């Protein structure tokens, strides 16, 4: 059964984003006193660890984020994953690997990625 936040505030002092980003972190939202900032999270999960009710802050955060406008850096990385399969540029990757003495690596091709992310015409979904 889904656990509900009792707004006890125990998670607040644990939250890096709340302390350094001005109190608009995800824990503030879950505690019910902010309408913005579902993206302000360091992903340290101390809030989940601290919560006496066992609220899945991660799930709540993800749900709220899908309703909100995303910061540019998040959107860029998401679009990159959709396009190439990776969140960061991989264009000159194998040249770099060679320089470090690492073997070349085969990356996922666009066709496979398209099938995987379900935007093909197979009627899946």
């Amino acid at each position, binding site marked *: 059964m889904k656990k509900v936040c009792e707004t006890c505030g125990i998670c607040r002092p644990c939250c890096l984003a709340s302390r350094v980003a001005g109190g608009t972190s995800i824990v503030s939202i879950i505690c019910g006193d902010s309408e913005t900032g579902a*993206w302000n*999270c360091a992903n340290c999960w101390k809030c989940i660890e601290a919560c006496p009710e066992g609220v899945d802050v991660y799930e709540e955060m993800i749900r709220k984020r899908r309703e909100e406008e995303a910061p540019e850096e998040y959107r860029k990385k998401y679009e990159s*994953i959709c396009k190439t399969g*990776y969140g*960061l540029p991989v264009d000159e990757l194998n040249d770099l690997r060679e320089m*470090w003495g690492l073997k070349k690596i085969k990356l*996922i091709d666009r066709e496979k990625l398209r099938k*995987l992310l379900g935007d093909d015409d197979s009627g899946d979904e």
Partner: protein
Amino acid sequence: MERRLLFSGCLILTHFQAYELAAKSVLPHVGIELADMEEFTCCGSTIFPSFSEEWIYLTAYNLALAESQGFDIVTLCGSCTRTLKLASRTLADDDDLRVKVNKRLSELGLRFEGQVKISHIIEVLAERMPAIAAEVRNPLDLNVALSHPCNVVRPSELMQFDDPWQPQKMREIVKLTGATVVDYPLEYECCGSTLSLSQELQALEAAKAKLRSALEAGAERLIVSCGNCYLSLAGNQQKIRQTDPEIDLPLLFLPQLLGLAFGIPEKELGLEL
């Protein structure tokens, strides 16, 4: 020698080849050979799930890919570790979702059965302490501070490894090298790396505070075992020094430190290019 697949993730793949190289050089000394995981993709991290439910296909694909080759996975970043473990558990617990995911994976000739074990490099090393001790040829005379990857230990109900508030396994491993581990007030604080995606200046402040705390405790090197920690705590130093020139603390990835103690040449540890 046990063979495992290296899931390096986007950050190590594109930025921190030195970490991959050091891991591949060091792990054979404790009985693990790391093979490349061809055609792996981003794990999705918290980025993909923040936009789409489709994240599970991306993560399941990587697990099924490893499963098709019959080897367990070793990770080098915290976030990849948590995401892969979350997907593995989600799919094991949800029969309907597993059927749906496997339907799509079958188009790629893959299937998720939940047979692959996912271990971060700290977990791998922590299971091999006697082997590490036996490999130390050059005990290190160095004061080091540690930065622990949050996502390897939290949330503890998922990760089931080490103390979720004050992780100790990395300390136990590092102590075997002869290095002195210095305690510092912000040791168990997050590096703030992911915060930079939404709050760049605040993330910089978090990194600065952590670095200052370690320096004031007398650290000569900061040891990390996550690409995000390195990105935040090494990548931000140049920027921080523009206003705070005293913030100068070189970082080492955990296998680089072990490699130095094992007497592995610096070039094989990514310490000289």
